[in-house]
């Protein structure tokens, strides 16, 4: 661990608008920075190889798996996590998830909501196929995804 300490670098970034300046090993993963250092546990951890999407966050406007992003990547980056979506009221996506029954155990939900936000930010009226392509990196074992598609429908009808 001492070796790692010697190699730590000052890393500046923002999470949900809040600025951080932390001394971090360059290869420390973003998912651990969020969960273990900043205690933002809304971002989940499940496969750690970028295949399940549970750790999805938005970095500089792009959807990323935070398990595949390291500290050296985030210097100067703007990161949005699930905790940044709702302040006083729920984000419309979150509201639609509730209405639609788009979640059960909820463990994939933060990543799923973030992935959908990333899509809708770029494409406010996606076709079903575009939604499916955008969310196919986010695994959900409970819902069979039907509720998630219902949530998208609710958002479209708004």
């Amino acid at each position, binding site marked *: 661990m001492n070796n790692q300490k010697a190699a730590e670098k000052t890393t500046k970034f923002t999470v949900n608008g809040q600025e951080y300046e932390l001394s971090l090993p360059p290869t420390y993963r973003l998912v651990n920075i969020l969960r273990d250092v900043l205690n933002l546990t809304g971002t989940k951890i499940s*496969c750690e190889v970028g295949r399940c999407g549970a750790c999805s966050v938005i970095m500089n406007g792009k959807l990323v798996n935070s398990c595949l992003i390291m500290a050296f990547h985030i210097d100067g980056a703007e990161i949005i996590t*699930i905790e940044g979506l709702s302040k006083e009221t729920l984000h419309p996506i979150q509201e639609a998830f509730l209405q639609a029954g788009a979640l059960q155990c909820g463990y994939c939900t933060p990543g799923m909501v973030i992935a959908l936000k990333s899509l809708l930010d770029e494409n406010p009226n996606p076709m079903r196929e575009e939604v499916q392509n955008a969310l196919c990196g986010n695994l959900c074992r409970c819902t069979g995804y039907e509720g998630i598609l219902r949530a998208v429908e609710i958002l479209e009808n708004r």
Partner: protein
Amino acid sequence: MALHINNLENRWKIRRDGEQKVTGNLKYLTDLSFPDMLYAGVLRSKHPHAVIISIDTKEAEDLPGVAAIITHKDIPGLNGFGLIIQDQPVLCKDKVRYVGDAIAAVAANSKEIAEKAITLIKVNYKILPPIIDPEEGLHASAIPLHEKGNLLHSASFKKGTSDLEDIFSSCSAVVEDVYLTPRQMHTYMETEGGVAVPEEAGKLTVYAPTQHGFKDQLQLSRILNIPKENIRVVSSPIGGSFGGKDELNIQPYISLLALKTGKPVKIHQSRRMSIKSGIKRHPMKIYMKTGADDKGKIVAHKVKIMADTGAYATLGAAVLDFAVEHSTGPYRIDHVNIEGYAVYTNNGVAGEFRGFGGNQVTFALETQMERLAEKLNMDSTVIRQKNIRKEDDLGPVEQEIVPTDGANAVLKEILKSPILLQKNKQNKREEFKVKGVGYSITMHGGGLGFGRPDPSGARLSLTKEGKLEASFGFEECGQGLITSIEMIMVDTFDCSSEDVAILIGDTSKVPHSGSSTASRATNMVWLGINKLKDTFKEKLLTLAEYYTNMDKDLLTFGKGGIWQQNKNKDRTNLVISYKELAAKCEELPLVATTYHFPTTPNAIDGGHYLYTFAGVACEVEVDLLTGRVVVTKIDHVISAGPAVNPMGYLGQIEGGASMGLGFTLMEDAVMEYGRYMTENLDSYLIPTILDIPNETQVTALEELSLGDTFGPRGVGEIGTVAVAPAIVSAIHDATNLWVTKLPIQPAEILKAVEDQLLKGMEVQYE
């Protein structure tokens, strides 16, 4: 009725725990951290089968930052766990039986140090050849994996004549084949984990997901050799389980290390470790021979089930019993001979998984039904109708069951599916794509079955905050139990959701209710609240009478508190709020009860009493160039009594269907020589949002037979059971291939297409 968000009105209820989940604010137990917390890791076996010659932890102990290392020597109590038989070592002493077997565990100041320390532990093994096939495991020459040999359990059911061969020879059609099912993984998104926190006076709190907090408490007390009362298990919320977290997983290691170090200890298993160590669905090899007369009446049915139970018992015996019981499904057959064997091997550990052995045999049985129809040149529906159980018939193992016409009801209703009605029309062919349709039905027992203790408990109380509190020892795995409890409370007491408090998932606070398993929790909640409602109402109304000086008969429960009602039983005005009532009470009213899951009176081990039914119809599209199968449409019909919580009900069927789809088309934790060939979700594939049907329809048949007082049945499993045979039937419709091995291999489809479509049928492509 069709369960659809737009036709359920106020029965479509937003999840009580939903807001915390969509905002990411909910702390799962694997999200917890405590001051001074240590991180632990577990050293798992390098080999599927080996003798341990020595374990050397010296170098690991010397690593700076390591707080404690434990091996078999450090277990104060029983070095074993298992829901029924405690044959799985907590930490192996002299032998390892699968690649997930634990040998040592380390607690350290960081995850990284714990992981490093694990690599420094030296284990000397003498490698033994692994037993990788159940049939091989039963050979006299096979090395016994346990003291009693390699047969964990055998089960049988026989009916009618003893010599079925005579009958088969007189049959107009006999179908005989061997069906193989995969080692499916639960793939809950939250891997196993939690934190054990030492408390004062040798006590311990274990925050770790499980489907049965009190069972973990019991198992841990044996291992730790401390009284159960000294262990508090906090077990909800859970990031998915599906049967996979009912058995202990990491709890013993964090508990032992917390007590040894006096500090909180956390493990959150990596997916790799979860795959290596966690339980799976039993792969089964099912020999099935079924014979019918010329009118389609099935006269004889012979089944042999070989279940690969892996290295340890867990619920392997019960899963086998369930498979044997469900081998005839909803059909009445005169001559039956079913035998099953659950055999120890060195292939991981198989145990409880949604469907509980029913999925495997239903795949085989329903495929047999279709094939008999084909041989007899009859419609499979006619055969089903000829053999299906009637309302007052006995259960599948000739036991008395609660009368139910569910089998007929789902059959009738699924035949109305637009998917099947389009069958008569020409199958539309896209270039190099063929479509097919098919359906299947099934019957599924709820609860643990005869001879298995299946008690439950419930408690209702008025809290000092003025809430009507319902308390159960059940868990919220995501299924929506919390909302179901809320809805039953609101329905029973005509109160508002805000009046209800719910307490679950903490052994220090809740009554014993048994496991949240076997589709039993919703049913048990309903029965419990119904048992208690009259005494609870009486208690509160008596108190209200005393404090308001109003005649009790004029008072009733309502939103916010106790109301006055007129002669027409209309509520006229709020008399005293629950909060005011609570404030006035010297002793807060509380009622509690214990009861048993309804059980058949006939002493047939594992035989069930309450059943649910499902019909599944689907359309598939088979790509003739790649052999890929896509399920394009699916309809479900479920008969399980009233739907308490339609959103939850729908979600269970939709989610169960997706799991069934994975079981049929893609999922298999392949093992070679006792080693997993899949290590993570990059090679173990579960359905993504691109793999689901374009159209899904779920219909709930909510009626129960006259006089059925057992209320809503659970639907946690039923949605997943009959999916595979419906897909298999649709694939046959498209390609003429009968699939007997799951998951379906595109190569097999391609070969069939080549053999049958291109040559035999001379299909012309436009």
